[in-house]
Structures are given as structure tokens and as C-alpha cells.
């Protein structure tokens, strides 16, 4: 096999890890609260700016900056839920979608106002690992490993703890859950916090690889939604598999043609798959 193709495939797998983590957070919110957070990718953008601001501008140590970013985005997520989603929880889905759409423009404009449209990076170069003739960026490897750890932690949390069980129960039947002695509103707030914290963690991992700018959410936001839907809403493992399929399409397509065309291919694949197997998804 061609060595560059192999490199593309490996990079695809590494990209898939971060995409899977992002999709996991969105999936949680999507499946449990049943609200489409269009602005999810822009929470990631906010997290990246926090890391940038603390690490590059204020000179904090990187792990501390990352922790602050995760906590900060989680708080932002709770604020989004309490201030925007909770008051319109009972209204038509389109209103919820448009409200978070408004948040998207607000966050993008706000970031533009604060930081301008410049591309900013952390000014941090992690070493490149060389395996035979293949070059792997250790930032990507770290991101992949952290994404896997985060996903396993969330999986265990959902399976092993009482709150996790309540979250899964609410995704199955939100009407009856109140009778089982679970306070829905509290679970919603916790779910928002966890989903947003995952966005914050992804932000830390992405900040190591990509430049930060106010519109970075637009570049991978639609992708995360596709992965969520491909994997099946609320289906964590399906989302994981879908993330790797999409990232492989992008990586291998990018090897044979240009980056844009590989994304076109991924989106076209999604559209066709929606027609071939609407609703019930990919795996199984």
C-alpha cells in the first residue's frame, strides 16, 4: 500500500477521535433534552479562545488553561440552557432551533468584536512522531487518546451512576420520568453541563492543532450534526462508528483530491444515506 495513503488513513483515525468526542456531547444534549443546539460548535470556539487567552496571552500553564476552559464552557452551557432553552422547552422545535441559531450569531459576532477576525494560534509546536516513513503529529495523537478517555469516562458515568441512569431513562421516556422521582429540570441542567464540558475538552484538543478564529465553528459544526444523525440520536456507540466513517471519507478523499472535495463527498454521502436508510441508521 502507498505510504501516503496509510498516513492519510492514520490521520483520519486520529481526526475521528476528536469528532467522536464532539458528537458525543451533542448527542447527549440532542438525545436527552431533544433540542438541537445549532450553536454547539461555537461553544467549542469559545473554549478555544479561553485556552488561547489564558495560555498564549496570559502565560498560564497549558493544563490549567485547559481545565479552566472545560469548566468555563460547562458553565456557559448551563447558562445557555437556563437562559435560552429552559423558557422555550415546551414550544415548537423550530423556535428552539432558531433561538440557538441566534446564539450562534451572537457568539460569532461577540468573538469578532473581542478578538477580530485574525487567525490566532497557541504558538506551541508539539513534536512530530516518526514511525518508519510515516509522520504523525503528537498533538493529534494526544487529542485522540484524550477523546477516547473522555468517551469511556462518559460511558461509565452513564452506566454506573444514578444520575447517569436517570439521564438514560429520560432519553427513553420523558413523560413518565417525573413519576420515578427524578427532577427533570435538574437532569437537563446536568446534561447541558456535561455536553458543554465535552465541547470544552474538544476545544482544548482542537486548539493544539488548529488556529482559532471566530468562525471556526462553521468549519466542523455541520460535520458534527451529520455524525450525530448517522450514528443515531442518543446512540453513543453508533455515533462513534459514524465519526470514524466520516473522518475516513474525509482523509482518503483528501488524499485522492482536494480537502474541499473530500468534505463535499462526506456531505453527499450523508444525503444519500438519509435517502437510502432514513431514520434508522447506519449500524445494526
Amino acid at each position: 500500500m502507498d505510504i501516503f495513503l496509510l498516513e492519510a488513513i492514520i490521520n483520519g483515525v486520529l481526526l475521528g477521535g476528536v469528532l467522536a468526542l464532539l458528537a458525543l456531547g451533542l448527542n447527549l444534549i440532542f438525545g436527552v433534552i431533544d433540542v438541537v443546539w445549532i450553536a454547539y460548535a461555537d461553544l467549542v470556539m469559545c473554549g478555544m479562545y479561553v485556552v488561547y487567552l489564558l495560555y498564549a496571552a496570559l502565560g498560564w500553564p497549558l493544563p490549567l488553561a485547559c481545565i479552566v476552559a472545560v469548566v468555563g464552557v460547562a458553565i456557559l452551557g448551563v447558562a445557555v440552557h437556563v437562559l435560552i432553552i429552559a423558557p422555550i422547552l415546551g414550544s415548537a422545535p423550530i423556535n428552539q432551533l432558531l433561538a440557538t441559531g441566534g446564539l450562534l450569531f451572537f457568539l460569532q459576532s461577540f468573538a469578532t468584536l473581542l478578538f477580530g477576525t485574525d487567525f490566532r494560534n497557541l504558538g506551541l509546536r508539539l513534536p512530530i512522531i516518526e514511525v518508519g516513513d510515516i509522520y504523525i503529529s503528537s498533538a493529534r495523537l494526544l487529542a485522540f487518546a484524550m477523546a477516547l478517555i473522555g468517551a469511556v469516562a462518559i460511558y461509565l458515568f452513564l452506566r454506573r451512576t444514578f444520575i447517569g441512569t436517570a439521564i438514560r431513562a429520560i432519553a427513553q421516556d420523558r413523560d413518565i420520568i417525573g413519576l420515578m422521582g427524578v427532577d427533570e429540570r435538574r437532569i437537563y441542567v446536568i446534561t447541558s453541563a456535561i455536553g458543554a464540558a465535552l465541547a470544552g475538552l474538544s476545544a482544548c484538543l482542537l486548539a493544539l492543532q488548529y488556529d482559532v478564529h471566530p468562525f471556526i465553528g462553521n468549519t466542523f459544526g455541520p460535520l458534527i450534526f451529520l455524525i450525530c444523525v448517522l450514528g443515531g440520536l442518543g446512540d453513543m456507540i453508533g455515533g462513534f462508528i459514524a465519526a470514524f466513517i466520516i473522518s475516513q471519507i474525509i482523509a482518503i478523499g483528501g488524499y485522492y483530491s482536494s480537502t474541499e472535495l473530500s468534505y463535499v463527498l462526506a456531505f453527499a454521502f450523508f444525503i444519500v444515506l438519509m435517502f437510502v436508510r432514513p431514520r434508522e441508521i447506519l449500524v445494526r
Partner: protein
Amino acid sequence: MRARCVAYIGWLAIVVALPFFTQPYYMHLLIQILLWSFVYTAWSIMGRFGFVSLGHGAFMGVGAYVPGLLWSYYGVTPWAGIPLGVLVSVLLALIIGYPCFRFRVIGHYFALVTLALGQVIMLSIIAARDFTGGSLGFTLRAVGNSWLALQFVRRPTGT
């Protein structure tokens, strides 16, 4: 009926008269208002049936690029290019819309299919950067004052 006629004519007169005494910036705003209200109308036609389209930018993009590219590269007048652009975006809508409703892709799923469509069109235009100028966009071939090209040299307006 008559009152309505008078109202329409009065409205038309105001719209026709506005460019003669409006400052360029406010003129720009007025044109934007009309354009966006047009786009909004297109969107709400579907929105009122519960179909949330996140891909209307795709149709707008096709409608903008088809006449623009036809004029700049092939010298096709926008008078023919604009109907052609409309036709192409109608075709695109049919290609995506027919299977959607045939296979009952509705609700959140419809919104996401249109989102993907918007991305497909946008990224295709960027990918064809030799032809379309990519994400930098492209400027129409300017020919000065011409009804054929629907281009008008800016004249001093307002007071």
C-alpha cells in the same frame, strides 16, 4: 378595491422616487431590506409547513453564481442568466426535495439534509476556485453603464 389601487400606486411612487433623494448608505440599507425580505419569504414558504431548511444559502448561491459566471466568462446577458439561475436552483431543489418527501425525510432529519446540501454547494464552489475564485469570491466583469449587463455606474445621489 379603489382605495387599495391608490395605495399600491402610492407605494410604487415612493419606491421609484426614493433613489433620487436618498443617501447612498441608506439606499444600500433599503436594497438590503428588500433582498432579505425576499429571502425570508422564500424560507417561510417552507417554514410554515414545518420544514426547516438550513440550506437556503445553497439556492441563493446557485442563483448568484450562475448568472454571474455566465456573464463574466461567456458574456451571457443577465437577462437570460437570471432565469437560467432560477431554473438551476429549481432543479437542485427538485433533486433534493423529491427524494426527501418520497422517503419521508422530515423534521430534524430534513433540516440536517438541507444543512448538508448547503455545505455541498458552498464547498463545491470553493473547490472550483480556478473558475469561481474560491472563498475570495469573484467580481463581475465590469462594462460601465449598460442595460444589457444590468450594470450602472454610480451617480451622485441625494443632496
